[in-house]
């Protein structure tokens, strides 16, 4: 049985990114409907609220609510930003959306601009994906030529300009206010909030920022109604979600499933565990979220609330699968190194703490650990979490805390025996590269 899809269905990957193809699939009908029915900006926001669409960028904030914060009638420039910076390890869905279905994002942004009163939009695209960036530029040009972008869109009163902005590949520029700084041409460093972007955003003007996937869902919601979107998922978790499944599965890749689908179903779609091994651990929402032990995960449904209940978060929807061949110390060492390197360095706990965490885990991995390190790591992580300017601090702390919480014995073994619990040959066997089919 195939599950219903919103974003990925019917994409042939031959020409699905072209405007004509998108229109053939019903593209830009939602936008047309807004002007023909007509729908007021408030109607659009109400529909999005009804859909229970939650932000796909990581925090899961209700999109309709976010849009309602924009001071729509304030004169002057207002901005709408699409966050395609996608730098979180394990996450690789936005680039595929842009690669195969860019017009869904463009249409979503135009509708978003209409709803929030934004006059200009930017899509901030991760600096290391070039082909995707170029394809998006082409799609923009198609939309401009077709009159979907620019002045008096489709003959209406509404004007909206949209541009692509190619970043330089810094993870921190995915944090929405660092992203704004980066567009402004400054160093990508998060701003302290308040003020929030809705009141003081890009160039100090009201700004709304959403994830690529969030925008891509909008045309469907407007075209089919918020209620139907909600029904696709479950209460408070409307719609489908693309999960980027990576790690020890037979067919790593992006899988779109209705929110609330059992994890085992997703695992099955991804070809199941490699070599029939057992699921040891899973990070269900991208590397910044807490890891969950395999048995907990196997009983979980894939939606915001179920995963939160299990002790992690759905985050960006990156599902990192680890089987028994994984050394948890080594895995944590790699994750900690990432946050250590990606910290912007402006606030003390993150700048100093991420290095401390990494060095201690590195030391343990290399046989220099002390039993007291485990409590030390937890305590240092506690001192970072919740005390920083942006959530990168939490992102660095949560993996450390959860790895030690769930796999403490393995860490203790590593410290006592100065080597991995999982024999190195086994680790090596587990990390042989398999190439699966993309969707």
């Amino acid at each position: 049985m195939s599950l219903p899809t919103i974003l990925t269905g019917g994409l042939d990957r031959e020409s699905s990114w072209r405007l004509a193809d998108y229109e053939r699939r019903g593209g830009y009908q939602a936008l047309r409907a807004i002007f023909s029915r007509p729908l007021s900006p408030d109607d659009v926001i109400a529909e999005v609220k009804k859909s229970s669409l939650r932000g796909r960028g990581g925090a899961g904030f209700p999109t309709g609510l976010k849009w309602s914060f924009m001071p729509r009638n304030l004169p002057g420039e207002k901005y709408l930003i699409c966050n395609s910076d996608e730098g979180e390890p394990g996450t690789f869905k936005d680039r595929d959306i842009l690669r195969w279905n860019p017009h869904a994002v463009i249409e979503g942004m135009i509708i978003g601009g209409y709803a929030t009163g934004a006059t200009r939009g930017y899509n901030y695209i991760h600096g290391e994906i070039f082909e995707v960036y170029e394809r998006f530029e082409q799609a923009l040009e198609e939309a401009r030529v077709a009159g979907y972008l620019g002045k008096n869109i489709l003959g209406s009163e509404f004007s909206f300009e949209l541009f692509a902005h190619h970043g330089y590949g810094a993870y921190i520029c995915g944090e929405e206010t660092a992203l704004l700084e980066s567009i402004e041409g400054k160093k990508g460093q998060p701003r302290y909030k308040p003020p929030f972007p809705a009141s003081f955003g890009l160039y100090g003007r009201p700004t709304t920022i959403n994830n690529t996937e969030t925008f891509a869902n909008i045309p469907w919601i407007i075209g089919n109604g918020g209620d139907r979107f909600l029904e696709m998922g479950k209460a408070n978790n409307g719609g489908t979600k693309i999960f980027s499944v990576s790690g020890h599965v037979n067919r790593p890749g992006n899988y779109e499933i209705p929110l609330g689908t059992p994890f085992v179903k997703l695992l099955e779609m991804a070809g199941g565990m490699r070599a029939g091994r057992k699921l040891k651990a899973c990070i269900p929402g991208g590397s910044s979220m807490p890891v969950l032990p395999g048995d907990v995960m196997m009983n979980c449904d894939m939606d915001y609330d179920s995963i939160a209940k299990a002790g992690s978060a759905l985050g960006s929807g990156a599902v990192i699968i680890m089987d028994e061949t994984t050394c948890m110390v080594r895995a944590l060492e790699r994750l900690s190194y990432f946050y250590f390197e990606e910290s912007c360095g402006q606030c003390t706990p993150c700048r100093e703490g991420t290095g401390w965490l990494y060095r201690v885990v590195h030391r343990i991995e290399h046989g220099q650990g002390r039993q007291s390190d485990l409590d030390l790591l937890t305590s240092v992580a506690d001192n970072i979490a919740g005390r920083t300017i942006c959530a990168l601090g939490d992102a660095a702390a949560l993996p450390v805390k959860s790895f030690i919480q769930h796999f403490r014995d393995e860490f203790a073994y590593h410290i006592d025996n100065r080597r991995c619990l999982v024999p190195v040959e086994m680790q090596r066997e587990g990390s042989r590269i398999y190439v699966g089919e993309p969707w």
Partner: protein
Amino acid sequence: MVEVEIDGKKVEVAEGSTVLKAAQELGIFVPHFCYHKKLSIAANCRMCLVQVEKAPKPAPACATPVAPGMKVWTHSEQAVRAQKGVMEFLLINHPLDCPICDQGGECQLQDLAVGYGNSASRYQEEKRVVLNKNLGPLISTDMTRCIHCTRCVRFGQEIAGIMELGVAGRGEHSEILTFMGRAVSSELSGNVIDLCPVGALTSKPFRFAARTWELARRRTVSPHDSLGATLIAQVKGDEVVRVLPLENEEVNECWIADRDRFSYEALRQPHRLNAPMLKQNGAWTEVDWQTALEYVAHAFRDIAAEHGKDALGFVASPHSTLEELYLMQRLARGLGSENIDFRLRQSDFSLDGVRSGVPWLGMNIAEISRLDGALVIGSFLRKDHPLLCQRLRQIAKRGARITAVHAAQDDWLLPVETFMKVAPSAFPVALLEILKAVCSTTGASPDTQFAAYLESLPVSDEARRIAESLCSARNGALLLGNFAQHHPDAGLLHSLALEIARCAGQLRVGILGEAANSVGGYVAGACPSPGSGGRNARMLWEDPCRAYLLLNAEPRFDCADPAQALSALSNAEHVVVLTPFVGEHGDYADCLLPIAPFTETSGSFVNTEGRVQSFRPVAQALAQSRPGWKVLRVLGNLLSLPEFEFESSEQIRDSLVAGRDVTAQLSNDMGRVDWTMPSAPPGLERVSDIPIYRTDAVVRRASALQACRDGTDPVLRIHPATASEVGLSNKGRARVKQGGAATELSVQLDEGVARGCVRIAAACEASSSLGPMFGPVTVEAC
């Protein structure tokens, strides 16, 4: 107003205030590093985390706005746990070697670590090392100690107006550095030393000279520009080893210029004159005070007897104290001479006798910060008045419209809406154009003396724009800078400024005083009385005297026409110099009297807003130096002048200003002046600035400042178009001639210089053999 409760105490604060401000209001201390009241909020150190009711996580007090009914705990378990956590992070990579750190004892990190740090570190990994940076002669670095609070960066961006320091790199690799390894060159740069909460940025000249607890802290006042920044001199034994700002919101806020901070280096050997000296048969010998003073008394008495009282001339630097200036004029007048002046770089004295009072800023310094528009006329604003310029920078940021008329456009690091660049001889025309444009906007009718000129005068776009911005100001001002005061038509410029102000509506007119006592000199009466026929600063040299007494003045650098001054001095029979320093007067003087510089005497400066600021000596007078006022008093006594029995400088000051409101004497108004429209001289005109580290005898000897970019020898600057007309090329050499005087300088093309002009700094070694600061010059390639 919003009511909040902090640590159980209620307080009302303005809406939009932060929790930290509210806590300060209650006298509750919240630990902090990155927060600084004059800088934007960065909220990056996280030291100020406090507990806020209903908030899931601790919030930074410095950045959290108050909300009605908010409850905050600054010392609750949650708050202290957060603060201690941050302190631990700050210390893990910070060297724990306070005993060898120059900041030890005055380090905010050290202080707070006592309260929030642990006695032992849990951090067992290797520590970060950051390479030091060369920031130039003033600031020493120890970058491993940096805690990344970015105060220094924000200072540059927001206060100094130039981002010379920035954070490069990310995460643990972030470091503070300059662009491409350049040195810091802002004239306000030293303030980052005070701002740096740790020992990362410290004073280079002071480095390892003393520990803070060994130092006496004594208040004093800056002797340089007319702002009168209040200072703390830190003294070890009898030597000033460091100077810091004494916060004074109404004057210097919490800043001082580098000139105020580092000039103390001049007050030591080898610069100082140890003992009175007499030149006998061409050779200098040390003598005792008695001998020297009797020599002077005799000399002056003899000259007066032989050539008349009019043969005595008295020349004071406007950086002298009020008391010195006063006793000097008493001495002159007691001897029957009116030949006395302190306005040494001025050349037009047409307003003497017409002015209604002492020329001054026309407002309080703090009021500058409330202006919404200003036209700056004839000023090298940024270097002449670093902190006034800083105030203008702040108002410009808030939307005040700044315009300028000047002969050379330097970057003031603030947005100047319209910069009208004209040759000095065209200044009056420029102001007339503005006047005409103003009148046509407001419908005011100009005074008859100008009306005739206005009729057929074409008005440039720039003048029109300036007029428009002046007329739109609700609280605007015209500010006449040092250059406008030095200008050969200074009186005319002043009257035109008054007229523009009148016609535009209620604009104020301010004189940006040049020196510490530019107002004080008038208050002390140190210039010829109107109608007395006494020689002013120009006539003193033009019509030479037989004997001169110089007070702190170095005519080679301090006068409008050094060549003329030097010729008058070398032809005089006697030249007596009261100076703290050696090295300048050997050729023409016959008696040198070592007087105490501002740090070793009591005295007063009257700043540009008319604020009388008195100070005590901060150190013992060096060697045989004596306070200038005492020397002048004894001279008065030896000459049997009446009423010369002063026991203290306070007594002198009080006899002058006590019970008399100095501010009542201040006025920029005036009666009518007769004037003629100046015509442009044939050929090129000279434009002279006084480089920031050449303004006075003290700063000229300050070695670290001299090593700065601003201390380098001047070049000849000329507009490229003018240069090609006269055959000069960039980096080439040029021979400069003014009357009989000549010198050679290297050429720098500079589009900022008005066409038809050559900019040659005055007060510099390289140009000291030249003639007047204004007027015709000839140049040729060589």
